[in-house]
């Protein structure tokens, strides 16, 4: 049962990933990527990690990709221009990709052959309580660092995307002054 579910979801994930890379239109790519995220979230559910699954949907599908879609719509991006130069490098890129795949697979194969035993304690691990406990005791420092990182990202994004000139909203300001 779980096996069949895994293969369906894995197939979905790979198909969506390929279509994400294949499509020239950024919005189609974004939608395919959301498909990857959702199938991965379902795979996390079968791995007894409901918290990570839900956070995956919340953060990736619900926040990051909404931002991406918003930016694509805002900039009104067209399809990629046809590639004119470096075309002869494409087969080499594909071959390098295959080499990378082979390497990754070999490493993973070696890892699964390693003599560490599997543990049965996995069921409790995905629960919110165990994650929360670990987060605020053993791994407090990384969590704090992530907090600082997010703050830096907020400040950076605000400075970056701000227009340097004053926006032309005198009319609005005037109207507000009249109201007050």
């Amino acid at each position, binding site marked *: 049962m779980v096996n069949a579910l895994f293969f369906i979801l894995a197939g979905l994930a790979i198909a969506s990933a390929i279509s994400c890379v294949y499509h020239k239109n950024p919005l189609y790519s974004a939608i395919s990527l959301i498909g990857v995220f959702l199938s991965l979230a379902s*795979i*996390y559910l079968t791995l007894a990690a409901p918290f990570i699954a839900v*956070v995956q949907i919340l953060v*990736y599908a619900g926040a990051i990709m909404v931002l991406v879609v918003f930016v694509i719509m805002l900039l009104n991006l067209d399809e*990629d*221009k046809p590639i004119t130069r470096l075309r002869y490098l494409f087969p080499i890129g594909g071959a390098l990709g295959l080499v990378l795949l082979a390497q990754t697979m070999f490493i993973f194969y070696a*890892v699964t052959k390693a003599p560490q035993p599997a543990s049965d304690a996995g069921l409790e691990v995905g629960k919110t309580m165990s994650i929360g406990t670990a987060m605020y005791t053993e791994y407090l420092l990384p969590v704090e660092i992530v907090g600082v990182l997010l703050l830096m990202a907020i400040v950076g994004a605000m400075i970056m995307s701000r227009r340097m000139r004053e926006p032309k909203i005198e009319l609005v300001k005037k109207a507000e002054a009249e109201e007050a």
Partner: protein
Amino acid sequence: MEPGLGSYLALSGILFTIGATGVIFKRNAIGMFMCIELMLNAVNLTFVAFSRHYGDVTGQLFVFVVMSVAAAEAAVGLGIIITFFRNRISVDVDDASILKN
């Protein structure tokens, strides 16, 4: 019947490779950004699979950290892309050539 650790790792490897080739082949910045997210997700899958395999919560915490970094990356990266678009009316990375020559 549950799939073993190997199946999850294989899926993760395939997704990672697709993402990596995508970063090489894509030319617009948003597409590259999305492929990087895809690679991060592939890595997350290995973390969760190992966490399940060894019954250890550390892997899931790492996923959490990776997600936060991805969120920070999205905020700053999209900010850069918007600024770049304002200056060049394009998000093609080939147009980011002001320092050339």
